[in-house]
């Protein structure tokens, strides 16, 4: 398992990196932590004559607190997110999602930006980040643009990144006041396996009354799903009829496909089970 020879290009700025990507087009690929890309290159499943090393660009590996949330640089490692006091205190669901990936060595190397840009449908962070209505900053030839994360994932291993564009950071807005969130993953094979599905849920309350429910799911189909149409839960309690309605909405908005970790039938069942469990867990913490 060796990698075909390639040139490692080390830009000093985003603009330079973008130029390199534009110049070499399909022959170039940005590399951050490399935990996935290097395996694919070793398997010779892919080959890029040029790798654009984002690690050589200063400033992409910071977690910054902002008034309305936090901004996590694309080069921040999973392990840094997992252990960050800021993330653990204010966005525990994000720390939890990043802590479930692979093993410590992988998490020490893999980057937040690489994880999102790879757009594997089975990854743990997207549901937690979608739940919090995160946005991503993309830098490209035309400058920077900010898009909601839910618009970033466009297909299996496909994203909204255009030629010469680089994912710069992810902005996570503060959690609504009075809210709690949870991420549950279900491994159908060994405990270390990719999730069969991941479910993130957020419930916010005001004076003990439900104000909002958010749900996001991954692992079921090519892109993660952020569930719409849950506004009706406002002022409801999560009794059986409300739960049934929620589960019905979820069922309508997911389109699971068969993979090694479950059939469509099984994944639909699991979506129901884990959405219910996530809500129950949030309710029991209330």
């Amino acid at each position, binding site marked *: 398992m*060796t990698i075909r020879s390639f040139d490692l290009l080390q830009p000093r700025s985003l603009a330079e990196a973008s130029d390199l990507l534009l110049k070499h087009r399909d022959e170039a690929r940005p590399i951050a932590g490399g935990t996935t890309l290097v395996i694919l290159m070793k398997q010779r499943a892919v080959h890029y004559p040029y790798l654009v090393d984002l690690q050589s660009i200063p400033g992409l590996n910071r977690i910054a607190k902002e008034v309305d949330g936090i901004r996590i640089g694309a080069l921040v490692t999973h392990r840094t997110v997992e252990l960050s006091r800021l993330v653990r205190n204010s966005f525990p669901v994000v720390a939890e999602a990043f802590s479930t990936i692979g093993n410590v060595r992988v998490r020490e190397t893999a980057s937040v930006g690489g994880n999102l840009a790879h757009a594997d449908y089975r990854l743990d962070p997207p549901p937690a980040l979608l739940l919090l209505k995160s946005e991503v900053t993309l830098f490209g030839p035309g400058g920077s643009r900010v898009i909601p994360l839910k618009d970033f994932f466009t297909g299996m291993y496909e994203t909204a990144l255009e030629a010469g564009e680089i994912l710069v950071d992810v902005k996570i807005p503060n959690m609504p006041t009075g809210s709690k969130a949870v991420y549950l993953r279900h491994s159908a*094979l060994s405990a270390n396996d990719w999730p069969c599905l991941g479910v993130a849920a957020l419930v916010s309350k005001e004076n003990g009354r439900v104000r909002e429910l958010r749900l996001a799911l991954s692992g079921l189909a090519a892109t993660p799903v952020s569930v719409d149409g849950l506004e009706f839960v406002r002022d409801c309690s999560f009794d059986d009829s409300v739960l049934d309605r929620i589960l019905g909405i979820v069922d309508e908005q997911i389109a699971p496909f068969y993979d*090694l970790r479950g059939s469509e039938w099984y994944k639909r069942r699991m979506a129901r089970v884990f959405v219910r469990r996530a809500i129950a867990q949030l309710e029991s913490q209330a």
Partner: protein
Amino acid sequence: MANLAVVGQSVYRKDANPKVTGKALHVGNIEMPGMLQVAVLRSPYAHARITRIDKSKAAGLEGVALVMTGVDVAKMPGVDPYYGPAFRDQPILAVDKVCYVGDPVVAVAARDQRTAEDALQLVEVDYEPLPAVFDVLEAVRPESPLVHERHRPAKAFADLAHVKAGQQSNICYHFKLRTGDVDKAFADADRVFEDTFSSPPAQHMPMEPHVTLVYLDEQERLNVWTASQSPSYVRTELSNTFSIPMHHIRVRVPYIGGGYGAKLYAKLEPLVTALALITKKPVRYALTREEEFLTITKHKVITKIKTAIKNGSITARKCEVFWDTGAYAEIGPRIGHKSGYTAAGPYRIPNVWIDSYCVYTNHVPAGAFRGFGVPQVIWAYDSQMDIIARAIGEDPVEFRLKPALEEGESFATGTLVRSFGIKEAIRQAARAIEWSKPRPVQTGTKLRGKGIAAGVKAVLTPSISGAIVIMNADGTANVLSSTVEMGQGSETTMGQIVAEELGIAFDQVHIVQPDTDVTPYDTITAGSRSTYHMGNAVRMAAVKIKAKLFEVVAAKLEAHPDDLVAGGGRIFVRGMAERGMTISEIFLAKFGSLGTTLAAEAVCQPTAGHMDPETGQSEKCTEYWFPSATAAEVEVDTETGQVKVLQLFSVGDTGTAINPRHCEQQLLGAAIMHLGLTLFEEMIFDEGQLVNGSLLDYQVASIKDMPESFRPIVVEVPHETGPFGAKGAGETGALTVAPAIANAIQDATGVRIRGLPITPEKVLRALAEKKGEALPQD
């Protein structure tokens, strides 16, 4: 076992320090000047004729020493391009056609690995696809496409001498056992149970993938360093394949990083030898994990089992076992035979009918896998034992104990069983799991249940182990043995046996690693046979040395040799420790010098009786047996189907434990391995194409999957001819894990899973079916 000094002690393993500190030599660490590295182009087709290979571009790449095809191999003078332990059916490289996705087609040897892999991408191969067959039950039909047009028996092993050149069929071996009158028993039965069980192909997953290094020394002798469980066989196979006399081949095996059956017989050695012979340079080929998936697997097995019950007892059993041996027979016929004859279980059943078929398909070849096929047949018969017990209202433990064979009773083969602790194993398992404790009534979505399973494996017989013990003048000893240390602890066990017999300290014995220039023949390091066979050989050799020492001491001290004992590095008169001599004093007395050695050779060669090819009856089908039982407690999440193993007890009759800790570790290690195989391991194929052929998608059990409570229980029923009463322990813990868990799941939920692995989805589907829900087909 009175007065033993080292045998029976849990001494620390000899290989622990070098392995933990990273000093242990492995084939992958050996560097040689000018060594070439290898990459192999593999078939993308399950079955196809090769119509053209253009290797010119690859051969022209700088740094490439050789681009070799199967035709090139076939043209080498004196070379048989096909090899294999049962049939010579496997080409070193595909000659005219490929038989599975992953079949090696072209090999490149180059100055470094990257160049070799770069060159592969320049090789062009054209194929003409042929009809292929993937389903083992379809492959046995006469109208199915043939994987091989002719069968060529290898005649490499005495126990496979009866393997015949087959007719035009994918069945390469058919074992039959017939005793009593099953038809009559089924006609007379109160109830008949019929079930079909399946067990999928899986990976051995040794930490160290296959690796082989071959070079020609200054005398042009073939030198082979290889991660192999069978150095003696590799030498024979290379001698036969390349027409090289045996004294011109030297096979050495350092510590290997696990084998589990994957590294038996010849694997990479013929290919690397061909490359080294042509290039005249050292050549090493190390498989990637992805290639490991395409090299050897555990047999997929379908077992149809039918059992007659009359007055609460089993009166007849009929088993049809279909082994998917893949594109090349490998050792499949031996597995079909040895496991086939145990397929009715360790039970008293008057009428038995067994057909065991080893069948070619266009899948990755299947071979030996810890348990040698027996876990697959126990999966069937001891799952069914539970089904029957629960259906007729018998206690599953009592239902097994009642017909479990007693010492001296006849097995289905007609062989009388000896050292057969099956009942004790079942009782110990039941006690450990508190079987008789009343179960609380359960509600909710987490249901708990307990399960027991039992079964037995027989050791490969006949087989041969030779050993030489060399006593040094300072009272230390060297042991020459071809048993491979692959983590099982054989070096330590052999050291204990020799130290015990010679009366010296355990750390005064050095075990020489397998080297066919030096260490005598050994059939294989596999099948839980080394402690018994090699243990007996080293012990007998030590006894011969001791007799020579006694002779000197008896003359010198005017004592009778029968009154002498060895202990504490001395030979002395029994009961009179002061009347004796040190080993050095004996050497001085005998040779007048300390500059010499005493050597002795011994061979352990148990024989088997003739087995009738029509009835499978034999006065002696095996030298000894490994009774096994497992007890499991599970918790089933009825919403997800997920099975959590709460408790697991692995019980094995190992004979006398030479090193009790090692026996426990073997029982646990085997159980952990089979825990993964039970719950999630499966190589998934789509029209012959492996879908999950990497560790990204194929999972083995990790520390996170371990049961909360997990304990080995060693049952010691001494064997009268085992070294100090020992048998073996390498596979016993593997045998009964799967049915124990399936039986516990039925106990918890009432549903029965008949196909491994027991994934959450299978359990959830079974629960839904039980509730009468309509399910989509998937």
